[in-house]
């Protein structure tokens, strides 16, 4: 059966038609679950996360009318998954791909809970957004796959049709450049 377009699904949300969630689920369930699972590494948690995501989307649209529905959903599920990840992490160490991907950035990140103002958070978000935007397509894809969707290296390599060591090399180069960028912008590391 043909999938409905994103704008048609958004119209269902605006009409407060509960079929909107069913259509979203049919079209994007696999994609959204993959993001949640990569972060949480738990099927049950991911499923709950997905339901939370649908509820958030239901509450957000309207008034929101996202230009990129898929990206919007990805952002919501990622937020949900990260929140859940943080909550779980407080209790135990989570063997998640997110843990692994963040561990790669140890030379940039610290474990110290230093005082960081809300303004610095906004500045960091802007810097990273700006950095990723200026990356070549391939590196942008690797960065987003690894740090946004928390995908395993093997999966990224398979998508790109290259070896894992090639992806690792590209990640090392991205990290180097990110560190340089943050330092040059005077962001405290």
């Amino acid at each position, binding site marked *: 059966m043909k999938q409905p377009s994103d704008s048609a699904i958004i119209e269902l949300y605006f009409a407060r038609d509960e079929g909107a969630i069913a259509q979203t689920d049919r079209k994007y369930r696999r994609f959204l679950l993959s993001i949640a699972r990569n972060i949480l590494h738990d099927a049950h948690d991911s499923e709950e996360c997905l339901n939370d995501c649908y509820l958030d989307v239901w509450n957000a649209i309207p008034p929101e009318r996202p*230009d*990129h529905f*898929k990206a919007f959903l990805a952002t919501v599920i990622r937020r949900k998954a990260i929140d859940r990840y943080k909550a779980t992490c407080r209790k135990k160490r989570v063997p998640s791909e997110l843990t692994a991907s963040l561990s790669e950035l140890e030379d940039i990140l610290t474990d110290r809970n230093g005082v960081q103002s809300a303004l610095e*958070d906004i500045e*960091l978000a802007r810097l*990273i957004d700006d950095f990723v935007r200026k990356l070549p397509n391939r590196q942008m894809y690797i960065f987003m796959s690894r740090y946004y969707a928390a995908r395993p290296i093997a999966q990224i390599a398979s*998508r790109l049709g290259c070896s894992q060591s090639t992806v690792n090399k590209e990640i090392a180069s991205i990290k180097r450049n990110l560190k340089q960028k943050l330092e040059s912008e005077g*962001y*405290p590391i």
Partner: protein
Amino acid sequence: MTKDHFSDAVTQIGSDLVERFCSMDERLERKRTKRRTYLKWGTAAACLLLAIGMTFALKSHNDLPADIDSIAWCTQDGVYESNIVFSPWNGWHHNYALNEQLTHGDADSYIAIRVTPNMSYPHSTEWNDFHTIESLNQEAQKFANAGACAIVKNHRLFIFVTREQLKTLAIEDKDRYKLLFAKQRSYEHKEGDIPTLANDVTGFQYEKFSFDLSYGKYETPKSDEELIDMLNKMIREGQFDTDRLSFIIHSDEFLTEDVFADMHFESLYIAKYIKSCYESVLYENINLEALKALSNHPSITSITVYLDIAELEPA
């Protein structure tokens, strides 16, 4: 900056960037699926090749009828009489030459029949289509299973059956096939009757030659002796339905007909602008000394040798 700060910042990446990532992801996934498909089909093709090889070997081991001397071949010159239409013989569609054999020929003789199935049938020099070869082999298998001696040769399907066998041959959809009385070379077939060129001529510029020995896969001889062996091999290959070798000759300059005078070519076509010519010669008329002279001609750059498969039906 802690891990939390970093992951929160990444979450706030602009939705247009996420969209770019999503669409690139979809594109790569499609490409990956395609790659997997190529891999799958590549593997399938390799298996198919193996199957073709095995099938061909199987067919080649199908023995001809023991009383080989009594095989009836078409001795007509191949003139196609398109106006004469015969009604099917026991359900088989056939041509005018075969009709004579089926109605008046010796009942106990084996008849050499070329079977043309209704399928995409590429030209003799374009046999890289393994799918078609496989289809032809499957057709041959059907006839072999029904009890006929079936041989795929020169990318054509031949069967050897008596009139009685053909009448009762259990083949479905007879409408799909056209039977032609197979033509052999211009002399009667006997074991050892295939002309062999004496391997005693030397002095060829053999590196100019290439032989289409396996339909699209060219081989270049490495010595005079190998060159003549390849010619002989090609003559043997043309045992059925074939009575000529063709030479395509490329040159640096326009060549006149007198250059080819000693080659006894039946037909000679010289293309002025592409500086090449196409010629065919009966096996028995091949003049090795003349061929040697051609290979040593300073303007001639290459000589490609093909089997010229005679047709009993219009092209």
